[in-house]
C-alpha cells in the first residue's frame, strides 16, 4: 500500500487523485441530501395518505409503495434515465437542453427520491399506526380537523418514534447513491473505479472509498442519535433516559 498515489496528478485533468475523489464525494452528498428532502416530503404525504379513512387514498398510497419497492434500484435508474425521456417527447426536449452532468444529477435525485420515499412512507405509516387510537380520537374530541390532528398530534409523535428506522434509511440512501454510477454520474464510487482503472491501484482506491463510506455512515448514525435524544418523548421507552 502506497499512499503517494493520492497526491499524484490525474493524467488528463486538473488536480490530484484525492481531489478527484473529493469531487465525487461532493456529488454523493449533494445527491443524497436533495433526494432525502424530496423523499421525506413525498414519503410523509404518502404515509399519511395510507392511514386516512378514505379508501381510494389508502389504495393509491399502497400501490405507490409497492411500485417502488418491487423494482430493483438499477432498473429504476434506467427507467428514469432512458425510458422516461424515450416515452415523453416533452421530457426529451427538456433533457437535451441540459448539461449531461446536470441530467445525471437530476435523474439520480429524482430516482433516489422516489425510491426512498416509498420506504419512508412505510415507516411513517407504521409510526402513525403504532400510536394509541386514543390520540387521534382525543385530537378530534378537542375539535381539531383531520388535517390539524395530523399536523399537531399524530405526525409529531410518529416522527419521533420512527427515528431509528429513518436512520437506517438515511444510511441506505447514501449507500444507494453509488448505483448512480450506472448512469455515469461522477459520484464517489465512479471516481474510485476510475482511479483504479487508470492507475491500476485498485486496492488503494477501494480502501479509500471504503473508509469514506464508513465515516459517512458513522457520522449519519451519530447525527440521527443526537436528534433522537433531543426530540425524545418523555414517558416513552426511548424518552425516559
Amino acid at each position, binding site marked *: 500500500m502506497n499512499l503517494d498515489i493520492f497526491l499524484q496528478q490525474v493524467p488528463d485533468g486538473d488536480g490530484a487523485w484525492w481531489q478527484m475523489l473529493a469531487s465525487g464525494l461532493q456529488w454523493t452528498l449533494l445527491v443524497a441530501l436533495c433526494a432525502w428532502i424530496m423523499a421525506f416530503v413525498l414519503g410523509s404525504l404518502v404515509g399519511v395518505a395510507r392511514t386516512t379513512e378514505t379508501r381510494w387514498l389508502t389504495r393509491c398510497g399502497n400501490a405507490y409503495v409497492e411500485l417502488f419497492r418491487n*423494482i430493483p434500484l438499477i432498473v429504476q435508474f434506467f427507467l428514469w434515465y432512458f425510458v422516461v425521456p424515450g416515452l415523453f417527447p416533452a421530457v426529451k426536449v427538456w433533457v437535451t437542453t441540459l448539461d449531461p452532468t446536470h441530467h445525471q444529477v437530476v435523474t439520480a435525485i429524482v430516482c433516489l427520491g422516489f425510491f426512498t420515499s416509498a420506504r419512508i412512507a412505510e415507516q411513517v405509516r407504521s409510526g402513525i399506526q403504532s400510536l394509541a387510537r386514543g390520540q387521534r380520537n382525543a385530537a378530534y374530541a378537542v375539535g381539531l380537523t383531520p388535517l390539524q390532528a395530523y399536523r399537531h398530534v399524530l405526525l409529531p409523535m410518529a416522527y419521533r418514534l420512527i427515528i431509528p428506522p429513518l436512520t437506517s434509511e438515511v444510511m441506505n440512501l447514501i449507500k444507494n447513491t453509488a448505483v448512480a454510477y450506472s448512469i455515469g454520474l461522477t459520484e464517489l464510487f465512479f471516481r474510485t473505479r476510475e482511479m483504479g482503472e487508470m492507475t491500476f491501484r485498485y486496492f488503494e482506491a477501494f480502501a479509500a472509498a471504503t473508509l469514506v463510506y464508513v465515516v459517512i455512515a458513522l457520522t449519519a448514525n451519530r447525527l440521527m442519535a443526537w436528534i433522537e435524544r433531543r426530540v425524545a418523548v418523555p414517558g416513552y421507552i426511548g424518552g425516559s433516559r
Partner: protein
Amino acid sequence: MGDLDFEVIGRVLPYLAAGLQYTIQLTLVAAAGGVVFGTLLAMARLSAWRPLALAAAGYVNLMRSIPLLLVIFWFYFLMPVLLQSLTGAERPPQIGAERSAYITFILFEAAYFCEIMRAGIQSIAKGQAGAGYALGLNYWQVMRLIVLPQALRNMLPVLLTQAIILFQDVSLVSLLNVTDFVGAAVKVAQRDSRVVEMYLFVAVVYFVLCYSLSAAVKQLQRRIAIVR
C-alpha cells in the same frame, strides 16, 4: 412514442430467460449460503468470548456501512489475488465475474442475515437453552436441536423478505458485464437500440415476481402468526 417495437422481446426471450435463470440461481445460492454463514456470525456475535463477538460485530458493521456495489467490485478485483496467495499459484487465477459473484453475495448477505438470526436467537426464552444444558446437551446440540429451529421458524418471513431484496440486489452484477437478467436486457437494448422496450419489460417482470413473492411471504406470516 409510435415507434415502439415490443416484438424484439419475443425474439430475444431465450437470451433473457438464460439471464433470469442465472439471477435466480445466484439468489438461491447466496440466500442459502448467506443464511448458513449469517447464522454462524450471529452465534459468534452472541458469544461470551469477547474477541470473537467483537470480530463478528466488526465484520457485520463494515459490510453494512459500505455500498453493495463497492463490495462487488472489491471482491471482483481482490478475489484472484486472495486465491493466489491461498493456493500459492504463480499467477492470479481467472475466476470471472460470474463465479466471483456467488462468493461476494454469500459474504455480503451474511451480514444482513446475521442481524436477522441474532434477533431470532434472542427471541427464544433463555430458559429453553438452560433446560437443554440441564439435560446434558452441549452448546452445539442446544443450538442445533432447540434454539436454531425455533429462531429460523420465527424469522422465516423476515429471512424471505431479505431474500427478495437480495433477488433485486443481484441485478447490480450487470455493472460487471455479467449476463444476469438486467445484464442480458442491457446488452440487447444496446445492440438493437431498443432501450425503452427492454427496460420496461425488465421492470414489469421484476415487479410481477417480487410483488407475488412478497404477497406469498405476507400470507405465510399470517399462517405462522396464528400457530404461535
